[in-house]
Structures are given as C-alpha cells and as structure tokens.
C-alpha cells in the first residue's frame, strides 16, 4: 500500500504531584472494576490450572536431591546450569531448531500455495480444500501410528512404491541421519492444511479495487503477488509463523509414539527431553528447570512477534 504509517503521537509527560497520581489511579481502577469482575471467573481458572502450575514449576526448579535418599534442598539456579550443561538438552535444542525451521518454512510455503490456488470458491476448490484440511482432523497420535506403517523398512507403503525405483532405501525411522526428517514430513503434512485456512482468510481481506487497479495498470500475476498480495498478507504471515513455532515446540506426540527421541537421541525435542527428565530420570528439579527455559524462550518469542504484529496492525 502506498499509505505511509502514521508517526507516533507525542505524549505529554509533565510530572504530576504524588497525590494526584494516586487519585488518578483509584478513579481509573474504579472505572475498570466491572471489567475485572467480568474477568474474575476465567482468572480463577487460569490461576488454578495455568499460573498455579507455572508457580509450582518455578519452585520445583529451585530444589534438588544430592543423592537418592537425601532430602530435597534449595539449590538456586544449579538445576538451570545443569540443564544447560547437559549435552542431551543442547542436542534437543539444536534438533528443535532444525525441526522448527524445517517444518515451519515448507508448511507455510505449501499453505500459501494451496491458498492462492484455491482462493476462489467453487465446487472443485471446496472439495480440494476439504481434502487438504483432512490431516488436521486426524489426531496426531493416530496419524503417527499410520505413518509408522508407511515408514516400515522393507515392507512399508513407502518402501513398497519407492523401492521399485531405488534399490537401497534408508531405514526411515531407524537411521539417526534420516529419522528427524521423516518426523518433519508428518508435521508438514499435518499442519499445511491448517495454515492454509489462515491464508485463505487473509486473501479475502485483499481489497478487490486495488487488485483491479493493478490489473488495469498492466501488472502481471507475479507483480500482483509480489507487490499487493504478499504485503497485504504480512499480519497473517506473522501470526502463522508464531503458531508454527509454538507447534514445533509443543507438538511432540509423534516423537512419543514413533521414536521415543531415538535412535541415539536424533529425534529428541525439548518437550520430550523434559518428559524424559521428569519420568525416566525422575528428576523433577531438572525437568522444571528445562520447562522454565523453554517457557522463557517461547514467551519472549511470542511477545516479540505480537509486538511486531501490533505495530503492523497499527498501520493502514
């Protein structure tokens, strides 16, 4: 769009006397009291099931046992430094970064492609949209169980078909070099249809008149995509990128079902690492510390992207 973003309005910052500040604060609080009351029920549940759990994680992260029979004692940030020093954790972070980029980029690209191809509504495109959306409806655990059979070495569906073309195929889930990519394929297959929905919605918001004007000015399909559609879709992109990144951290059902983080930790992701610490190592302190680190990373990422998004939305 040709409209420039409005400059931020200068705000008067004259210092008021202290009493004045308190008075203003109380009136403001009184004014917003009904709003707080309305929010109270959800706040209670959030406090019980989200903030309460988070508070517990913070507490747990500060305690550790020196030996199995020793009592819990306060260790400060020792758990956090133990997690950061654990090669399994750094390995999981690296895997998770590869996984995040390797699933977000292709699934968003595919989603955009699908959305552009199916933007106009008619019988065929509706049917295709439904078909592309279908993987979203299949629970991740069920999908993983299906893909286990597809990926079976020698006898699986994939080997049955590709095996006719290539003589030697990798053991998809059993080879540490390949397994993470096999897992990524499932995520892309599952999420592309979901992100397509956001892009379809975003495309509806592209103003018709601007498109028509560009058409009349002789802009070709590529020019229209490059200079009108993509800039208009910027908020959608930001939103989908945030969702895709969150998914890359929180969706580990398939790792759980298919590989348990193996072979040789090659598909171990951060959330699965936390699970392992809590359950297999029975080390609540380290698991909580790893959870804290992950939460901090995710929250800062989300805050950053939503601020960027708010800035964009503040524009035209």
């Amino acid at each position, binding site marked *: 769009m040709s409209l420039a973003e409005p400059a931020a309005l200068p705000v008067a910052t004259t210092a008021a006397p202290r009493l004045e500040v308190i008075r203003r604060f109380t009136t403001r609080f009184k004014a917003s009291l009904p709003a707080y009351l309305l929010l109270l029920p959800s706040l209670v549940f959030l406090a019980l*099931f*989200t903030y*309460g*759990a*988070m508070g*517990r*994680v913070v507490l747990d992260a500060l305690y550790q*046992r*020196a*030996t*199995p*029979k*020793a009592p819990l004692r306060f260790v400060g940030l020792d758990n956090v430094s133990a997690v950061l020093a654990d090669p399994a954790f750094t390995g999981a972070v690296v895997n998770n970064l590869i996984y995040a980029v390797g699933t977000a980029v292709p699934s968003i690209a595919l989603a955009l492609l699908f959305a552009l191809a199916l933007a106009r509504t008619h019988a065929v495109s509706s049917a295709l949209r439904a078909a592309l959306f279908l993987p979203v409806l299949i629970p991740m655990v069920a999908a993983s169980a299906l893909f*286990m059979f597809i990926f*079976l*070495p*020698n*006898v699986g569906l994939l080997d049955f078909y590709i*095996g006719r073309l290539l*003589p*030697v195929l*990798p*053991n998809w*889930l*059993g*080879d*540490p*070099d390949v397994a993470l990519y096999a897992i990524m394929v499932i995520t892309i297959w599952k999420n592309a249809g979901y992100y397509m929905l956001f892009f379809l919605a975003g495309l509806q918001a592209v103003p018709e008149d601007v498109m028509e004007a560009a058409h009349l000015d002789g802009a070709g399909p590529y020019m229209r995509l490059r200079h009108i559609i993509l800039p208009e879709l910027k908020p959608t992109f930001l939103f989908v990128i945030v969702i895709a990144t969150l998914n890359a951290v*929180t969706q580990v059902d398939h790792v759980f079902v298919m590989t*348990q*983080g*193996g*072979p*040789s*930790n090659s598909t171990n992701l951060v*959330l699965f690492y*936390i*699970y*392992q610490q*809590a*359950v*297999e*190592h*029975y080390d609540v302190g380290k698991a909580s510390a790893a*959870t804290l680190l*992950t*939460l901090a990373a995710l929250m800062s990422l989300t805050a950053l992207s939503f601020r960027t998004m708010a800035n964009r939305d503040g524009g035209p």
Partner: protein
Amino acid sequence: MLFSRRLMLGLAMAGTLASALAFPALAGEGPTEIDLFFPVPVDGKLARDMGTLIKEFNEGHPDIKATAVYTGSYDDTLIKTRAAIKAGKPPSAVIMSANFLLDMQIENELTNLDALIKADGTTKEQFLGQFFPALQGNAVINRSVYGVPFHNSTPLLYINADKAKEAGLDPNKPPQTWAELTDWAKKLTKRDGDKVTQWGIAIPCAYDYCGWMMETLTMSNGGRYYNEEFGGEVYYDTPSMLGALSWWNDLIYKHKVHAPGATPGPAVSTSFISGNAAMMMLSTGSLTYVRDNAKFAYKVAFIPRNVRNAVPIGGASLIIPAGLDADKQKAAWTLIKWMTSPEKSGWWSRATGYFAPNMAAYKTPEMVDFLNKNPDAKTAVEQLDVAKPWFATYKTVPVRKNLEDEVMLVLNGKKQPKEALVAAQKAADETLKPYNAETSLKLP
C-alpha cells in the same frame, strides 16, 4: 506445560474420586475398596480379560471390592503410580514391569511384603518356592520380597519353517550356536543385485527392546549385563558384551544378513510375518500374534549360544505401593495371592501368551491340555531353566538408554562396537554416580 497441566487435572480428578471412595471405608461399613493399576503391553484384548478376572475375584470375596484401572504401557503405569503416590492416594496394587522394582524400592515407593507373608504363616522360601527360580531375582531386593511375579516372558528364536526347507535346512534341528545361526542366516538371505529381497535374520532395537536384546546376546556369550546383587553397576565395557555387539554388527556389515539400522519390535514381527525376514529374535509375548497371523509353518527355538545357553526374563510383577492403610494393604495382598494362584495364573497365561510364573499352573489339567495343542508354547517354559533376572539398576531406564543410544549408532554403521561400549560405560557410570555416592563409595 502440556504434561503438568494434564497431570494437575488428572490428579484433581483422581483425588476427588479417591476421597469419594474412601468415605464409606472410614464409616466402617461395606467392603474394602481397592484399585489395581494394570498396563496392557501387548494386544488390546488383555483389558477385557482383566475385567473378567476382577469380576470373578469380587464375586468370590464379598468383603473386598477391587476395581481394575487401565494405565497404558509399562512406562505409563510407572508414571501414573508415582503421580498417585505423590498425591497421597496410591493404588492398592499395581502390575509393574519387573525391572522397575529396584528403582522404586530405592525411592521408598514399595511395601515390603515380608510381614504379609509371615502373617500368613508361611516362610519366604515357601512363598517364593511356588515360582520359577529365574523369576525370583526381580522380586527380591536385599533378601526381602517386594513383588510377586504375575506374567513373564523370555526371548525366543522364531524360524520360518517353509523358507528353511526351501533353503535345504531342517527346521526340526534349529541352530543352536551363533556359528550355526550365522550359517542359517546366510543361506536364508536372498539377493537381487544390490537389493536384498529376503533377510536371514531380524533382531529388534528400539528403546526398551534394544537393552533386552543386548542382555540376551551378552548372556548367551557368557556375560552379565549388570550386578544382580547391587544396583550401582553395569558391565557394558566387557569382552562378553563386546563379543555380543560385534556379532550383531557383523551380521549387518560383514555377513550382510541383517538389515542395517535400528528396527523396532513391531517392524520386526511384521517383517517376519510378511516373509521379508526368515528368522527373528523376539519375546514369547509375540507368540500369540505369530500363531494367529503367520500364513506359513513356523518353529520356535532357544536363543542360540556362543558360550552358554542363557536368557533374561521379561514381564511384570504385582506390587503394593508404600503408604497404604492396613486394611487396604491386606485386601490387596488377598487379591495378589488369588491372581498368582496356579489356576488363575494358568488362565491368564492361556489368555495372553505370557507364561505362568507359578510352577503348579503347568500341572493343572487345562494347562496340560493347552500345551498338547500348542507345543510351541512349551519352548518358552523349557527355556526358563536357563533364564536369569532382567537388568534392574538405580535409574534403570536412563542407564539402559546410555547403552541403547550407542548400540543404535553401531547398527547404523556410525561407530565401532568397542568405542561405542566405552562411551556407553562412561555415560552409565555417570548416571549411577549419585547412587554409588551414598552406597558403595560412602566410606566410614
């Protein structure tokens, strides 16, 4: 986040339920209510069989009301039991993977069963004497009984008899040594140029199975996986384990009769059923599956030896968690004794494919009849004579994973057996360090 939220919700619900159940018991009227946590490690039919079993128990014991609670896999069952203990509402009895007992005992999560056995007027020796000797190692810790064997397994060699005959081998004389097995596997591998159309043998390797198979191969090579008397030591960097892993490595990269990479159990059995692998090493727990699905004649045999015939056991024991009221403990003990009696033990064995730990079960007429009809079920029982306990250490799962991660690298051709085992030993020693610090290395 995800797990903690689910856990909180689960705990809240479990707490409400448990308190609702506890009130009638406090009032001193009605039957004692007890929960039994049970996993389903194999086919889904097990859940229904468990329902039948518990219903029969309740009908015969009007003063006890037992409820069977399905808790997922062996690992899930451990998680849920620990969560319930932490919440102060432990289940009264749990069917627990036999090699988790030591770890739970170290964490003070088990009830010592000695007093309950004594109260019955029997000695420990008499009580344990009912079960196959091989199963006692995983049930007894520091000479106290902590578990009662419920259903158990051993690894077996499965042979596609049709393919063996085709290759000029006699399936009635299965390979008894590693040399013979290697020879069989070579004859049973079919190639089409670079492509292998039929593998000679398949051995599973996924977390859990891989460690069990390494213990199997190491034991038949004369070795031990861990210190049976003390939970702070494993023997990864030893000649017997080096021989075991080198042979597995050779089957893949020297003889080329075993598919490269780490293959999980279900993939191995599918491969065997589809004829893609002519032999496999797998648990007796898969016997029912093979019997129902194989469209060819098959044979089962002992795991071949290099030095001696020896295999580890697998399966689960019944335990009573720590921190229960006396009346619940007593009711759970009644349930456990009933479930492991010869008659019920045999019934469960026929329903599931596991073997019955109670030796007297094999003298019941139903069992004699069943074994006559299914002679292949006999091999697992005969192999028990040479079976030994399943590895169990402080933090069994991470210590096992220390080995499995390295074995997987070897099977994928990324490491040589020796360097892999040195790395595994180092990692395991590190995991075991806190336990040794308060036991073997805590000096006066």
